[in-house]
């Protein structure tokens, strides 16, 4: 299979007269971390919502793993291999870390009509959950209730729940939001590892972090892409500097 996993072409999403996402094209490749940056209201989260199928597309096309997924529902895209995390925590606080991941892993359990087997007997979803927890570095707290985790751990769990569904494409909406320095380092290391085997789209406000981990950066302003290139080229682009990064970044 080709390593190009997701292609979005001319994607737009309008809310009435507001063009929240306007003619945006992105390509996500396995092994690459593609960051999308932009000021608040630039349309980054809307882009993720459209790509994941959470809100309908206005115009444009989305190809997922070689299939035209433009009209697919969110659950169908997810089962095909598209995972996403949310900007705010969407963990299930009253369940343990393990149970959180097992629950999402079970979206893949093929025997949908099996109503009698206890979930605790499903070896596949247990292993998928534990793999995801291991990868996200949450093994030490595997049996803790999710609601009692630290903020950084909750963000890690958000990603572990996504990994448990065994996705090929990851859309991560601000995984670093609200994290302390140490937590940020741990998350950046994780993001670096996640490139291996996945195509990752990262939305992030923390510029230093983005330039450290991204292979490719797309800059959005008012719903439009004003630059999409390697970090070095984006850094050097006068248009980006003018529109977004500001003087202190150049210095």
């Amino acid at each position, binding site marked *: 299979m080709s390593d190009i996993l997701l292609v979005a072409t001319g994607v737009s999403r309008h809310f009435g007269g507001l063009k929240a996402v306007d003619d945006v094209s992105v390509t996500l490749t396995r092994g690459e971390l593609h960051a999308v940056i932009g000021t608040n209201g630039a349309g980054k989260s809307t882009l993720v919502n459209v790509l994941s199928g959470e809100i309908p597309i206005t115009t444009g096309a989305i190809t997922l793993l070689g299939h035209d997924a433009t009209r697919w529902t969110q659950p*169908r895209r997810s089962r095909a291999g598209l995972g996403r995390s949310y900007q705010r925590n*969407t963990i299930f606080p009253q369940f343990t870390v393990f*149970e959180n991941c097992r*629950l999402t892993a079970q*979206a893949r359990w093929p025997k949908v009509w099996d109503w009698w087997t206890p*979930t605790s007997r499903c070896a596949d979803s*247990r292993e998928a959950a534990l793999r995801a927890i291991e990868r996200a570095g949450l093994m030490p707290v595997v049996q803790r209730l999710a609601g009692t985790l630290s903020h950084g751990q909750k963000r890690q769990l958000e990603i572990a729940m996504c990994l448990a569904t065994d996705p090929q494409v990851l859309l991560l909406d601000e995984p670093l939001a609200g994290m302390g320095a140490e937590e940020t380092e741990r998350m950046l290391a994780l993001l670096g590892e996640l490139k291996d085997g996945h195509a990752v789209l990262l939305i992030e406000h923390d510029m230093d972090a983005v330039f450290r981990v991204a292979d490719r950066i797309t800059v959005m302003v008012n719903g439009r892409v004003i630059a999409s290139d390697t970090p070095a080229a984006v850094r050097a682009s006068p248009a980006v500097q003018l529109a977004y990064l500001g003087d202190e970044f150049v210095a």
Partner: protein
Amino acid sequence: MTTMAADDAMRTRLPKLLPVLIAFALLAAFPAFGSTFYVDLVGKIMIYSIFAMSLELLVGQTGLVSFGHAAFFGIGAYAVAMVTAKVDAASLWLVVVVAVLASAAYALVVGALSLRTKGVYFIMITLAFAQMAFFVFHDTSFGGGSDGIYLYYKPALTLGSLVLVDFDKGRAMYFGTLACLVATFAFLAVLLRSRYGRALAGIKANEQRMRAAGFATYPYKLGAFVLGAMIASLAGVLFAMKDGVVNPELLVWNQSGAVLLMIILGGLGHLRGAMLGALMFTVLQEVYQSEALFGSFSKHWQLMLGLTIIAFVATMPRGLIGLFGKRAKKEAP
């Protein structure tokens, strides 16, 4: 990870199940020393327990607050009257199949439409559909109008021409009801621990996250809605057989409200809570309606019941089940 599986099993099975098993055993022994009045009352409580558990599946487990659940109870009850001929007892098999299929069909229509909405809109639409069903039975001659229909013969459990159980004899009705109660509890307890049941818990907690994980949540909710209706219709069948009469009051919105109060009173999120709530609600109703205790004031029993329920809900937000301490903590997926 065998230890983890063992932990899961230990935590979820024995301590929770034991009181329920003891309760079922006591129920089985009760007719041996209870008078007919109390055996009849306990029979009614068991029927309401089945009804309450069917709504618990929707409200407590899936987060769908249906305010029209009595429609399915009533459809089940009317199915008994419709199938029963004037001259002979009907086969219980036929009665149950008709009741369950009729309520499932109605639930499929109501659910398919109402589940496109959320929150208060869902509550109102389920109420509207239930009231529609009420008026069909109340205002047309189809189900005997507002007087309802008397049953001259209870359906019998048959095998060919052989009558296995005649529910007019002895305690057959009581033990038949108990068997249904145990079967309903066992079925739902197993279902809720399965992938499907855990998915419902996930949908209740955060439907958006479940969709992002790949669960097409609409058919899951519709399935729960139809299943809850089918179980409610079974309770309706039992109720009609016990009382020997059906009337539109079985479907009226007060009835939907009463069963909602039962599960809230008992504690949402637990099958045991639904049973406890049915017990408490029915006992309170009996006590307040008793002229021996309250004299002429007993005709204001609804006022006393209402005040008591407000007091319960205010002082026990987790319901009666919350009295049993930490053990009643929210069940995980």
